[in-house]
């Protein structure tokens, strides 16, 4: 059998949410999907000319991963804090 990637469990606080703004195409799907209304589209343009998404610092992300699921550009990652 081939090696399989192992799932690990983390607490929310140990995780970090990151948007690669240069990969973002500003489609807004993550904004719509976020159950906590954390995400929004900026009025700033990235290298490709898109209004990219970001987290509203006033809201709290629960690291649920909904945004990751729907992002067609794999622009969002959630990783353990270093």
């Amino acid at each position: 059998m081939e090696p399989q990637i192992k799932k690990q469990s983390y607490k929310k606080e140990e995780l970090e949410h990151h948007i690669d703004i240069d990969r973002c195409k500003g489609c807004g799907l993550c904004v719509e999907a976020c159950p906590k209304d954390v995400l929004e589209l900026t009025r700033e343009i990235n290298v490709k000319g898109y209004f990219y998404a970001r987290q509203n610092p006033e809201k709290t992300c629960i690291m649920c991963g909904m945004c990751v699921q729907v992002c067609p550009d794999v622009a969002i990652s959630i990783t353990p804090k270093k």
Partner: protein
Amino acid sequence: MPFPYTRPISLSERQTHYCPGCTHGVAHRLIAEVIDELGIQGRTVGIAPVGCSVLAYNYFNLDFQEAAHGRAPAMASGIKRVRPELMVFTYQGDGDLASIGTAEIIHAANRGEKFCTFFINNAVYGMTGGQMAPTTMPGQRTTTSPMGRDVELTGMPMRMAEMLATLQTPGFVTRQALIRPKYITKAKKAIRQAFQYQMENRCFCFVELISTCPTNWGKTPVQAVQWAEEVLLPYYPLGDKKTPEDAQ
């Protein structure tokens, strides 16, 4: 999905050329994640169609072949027959698979070729600029059905999964969607199931994935997701249509 959520290694670093909100990207990610999770990157071969995803080969970090329009299942059959140890999948749009490639997909399925097909149904020809597909909905306007699809003249949308499920050869046939987290999670499970059957050399696996084409639907990405949910899903019901266990 590998948790924490990071970019699967079976995806390359390249940014896609897909339009904003196009769910081709979601399909790519799910397939790559499953390949990572199963640890089969080193022996998986993908086949790209002609369609918006023709450049899929640039986005996967896998051995890849680029097919002629509609012929991916024939190519996959050729590959899999000469190298049965490879994990082979085709990635095809609805113009590619349900129109020009009808004979090839039906016969690959009927021969029980041991590869997986991921069928991206976005109810339109994306790449060539929005012409009618066999999957286009009644009344849907496209550049070649400018007054909306007239079912009197062009018939009803084709449900490929249901049609393939009628074949007597055992197979795995399912329909999932690339929108909304709840459907996406299930889509990934189906993709994983498909690869697993292939690893067990079980059967031909067909995963239809309802997708969006905001550009040619003339909608924003968010509207497109809504339209897909409200208009496509009722006509294209999700779920397994056939599993190899049925045959037993």
